């Protein structure tokens, strides 16, 4: 009822933690068996270790949070030698989120990390708004995104998913560009660029100034973009952005996602992923579905088959 097949991925269920909100799994492994998860999207890996931005790095906003971690991670070598082997004890496919400041860096990381036996797909983080060094360009200019996708596709041993940034005028153009460049799938959305000022100091709470907005606040934007993109491309979409409960998961599937990822909610309820996996079958039944796939894209499939125009 829950199994989902995507390029490179045989998922037990369509629910997985989103990159950056789950580290490399070690912490959550103390709370539950990671093999229960559909997949794991690990923290962005760069070629060299990165310390990231100054602190404070997070701030709360109404029904959301800002973060400017700045891609802190232990670097490719340590991820290959320690994190991925450790994760291989679990029966769960790993989606490796990779980032970089140049096309070459992406290519190098992709080439190596895609060789790890438990890495079943790559997720190109072209959208992290926190890295100043041109990083944002990858995520906002269709041609640049396409070029990067192609370069990574050329070296990757596993299917490549591209993670789209919502900070664009035309999300469909971005999706089409990466599809054309050979992407096997799309994951969306990354965070929206936001800011919160402490009125007492007059300064941004986040030391970096701006940060990425996530959590339930952004859910309507994520749903809208997935709705638009999933109708416009042939490759599958993994949806994320503000999912908190089972109905949110189903909303994303109906919008057009084939699977979903959960980010911020892991901080609110560290057991959220497994709780939703456990709750999903019953809720699907209640709504009259026999398999999770039946939900996918229902919002626009229904529109197409019946006219709902109003006089």
């Amino acid at each position: 009822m829950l199994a989902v097949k995507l390029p490179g991925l045989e998922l037990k269920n369509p629910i997985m933690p989103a990159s950056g909100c789950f580290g490399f799994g070690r912490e959550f492994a103390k709370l539950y068996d990671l093999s229960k998860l559909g997949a794991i999207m690990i923290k962005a890996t760069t070629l060299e270790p990165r310390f990231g931005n100054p602190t404070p790095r997070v701030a709360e906003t109404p029904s959301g949070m800002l973060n400017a971690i700045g891609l802190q991670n232990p670097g490719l070598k340590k991820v290959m030698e320690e994190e991925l082997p450790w994760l291989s004890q679990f029966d769960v496919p790993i989606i490796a989120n990779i980032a970089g400041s140049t096309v070459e860096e992406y290519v190098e990381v992709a080439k190596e990390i895609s060789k790890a036996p438990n890495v079943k797909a790559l997720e190109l983080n072209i959208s992290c708004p926190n890295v100043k060094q041109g990083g944002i360009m990858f995520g906002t200019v269709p041609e640049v995104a396409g070029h990067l996708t192609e370069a990574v596709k050329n070296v990757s041993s596993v299917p490549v998913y591209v993670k789209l940034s919502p900070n664009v005028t035309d999300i469909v153009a971005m999706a089409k560009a990466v599809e054309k460049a050979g992407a096997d799938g799309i994951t969306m959305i990354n965070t929206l660029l936001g800011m919160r000022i402490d009125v007492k100091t007059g300064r941004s709470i986040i030391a970096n100034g701006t940060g990425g907005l996530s959590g339930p606040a952004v859910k309507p934007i994520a749903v809208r973009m997935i709705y638009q993109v999933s109708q416009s491309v042939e490759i599958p979409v993994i949806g994320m952005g503000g999912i908190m409960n089972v109905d949110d998961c189903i909303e994303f599937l109906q919008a057009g996602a084939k699977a979903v990822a959960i980010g911020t909610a892991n901080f609110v309820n560290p057991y959220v992923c497994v709780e939703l996996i456990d709750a999903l079958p019953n809720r699907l039944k209640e709504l009259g579905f026999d398999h999770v796939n039946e939900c996918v894209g229902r919002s626009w499939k229904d529109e197409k088959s019946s006219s709902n125009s109003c006089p």
Partner: protein
Amino acid sequence: MIKAWMEIISNRPIAKNIYKMELKGELVQRITCPGQFVQIKVDDSFDLLLRRPISIAEYNAEKNTMTLIYRAEGAGTKRLSRKKASELVDVFGPLGNGFPVEETKEKALLVGGGIGVPPLYELSKQLVQNGVEVVHVLGFSTKAAVFYEQEFKELGETFVATVDGTFGAKGTVMDIINEQRFTFETLYTCGPTPMLKAIEEAFPHKKVFLSLEERMGCGIGACFACVRRTKTDANDSGYKKICTDGPVFRIGEVMLEC
């Protein structure tokens, strides 16, 4: 650590904007030392999305109870302060590494500033239980903000300073420390960063344990929100996480600010 619904036994103001909340539940069994903290979800609404980290001020494994002392400052702690006895709260914990009690055999100096005072209370109790002599130096902004002076007095000598001089000595904990020239084996401290910095400068060669604060995401080491650079490695990528490696660090282990 577990996520559990704990029952509120009591929740009442003990000083201006300072509340004391007693909670009951199995989670208490997992607390290993003073200075650990819990992450509280204020209620099930989404608008105050993140959990609030609060130190465990006191715990009693036999009775399954623990005490939190918190300042009702922002939206979340204000909502928390309106909760009543017998309501349940969603608590995740215990988290982090607390104060090493066993590092002191004879005499400890405990220095707390404002809302940094609470975790020192359980620490002091355990030190006294181990036969250690404790001296407390507590700093507050003003008389109305002073709390637990009596409780600390019962455990050992206690000095209080207020910035405006309305209670105890006028000034900061550093003024008292400079004046009294205490002798001690170990110094344990928790409070605002400027205070911690002053202590670090004053006692570079002493055995000092500091409890740090930072805005947190996950509270368990997964999100990299709460890092501090390690001192030995200031220009490199060496770091510790306050939520799991701390919140208590040995002096010099990490940089006090980003």
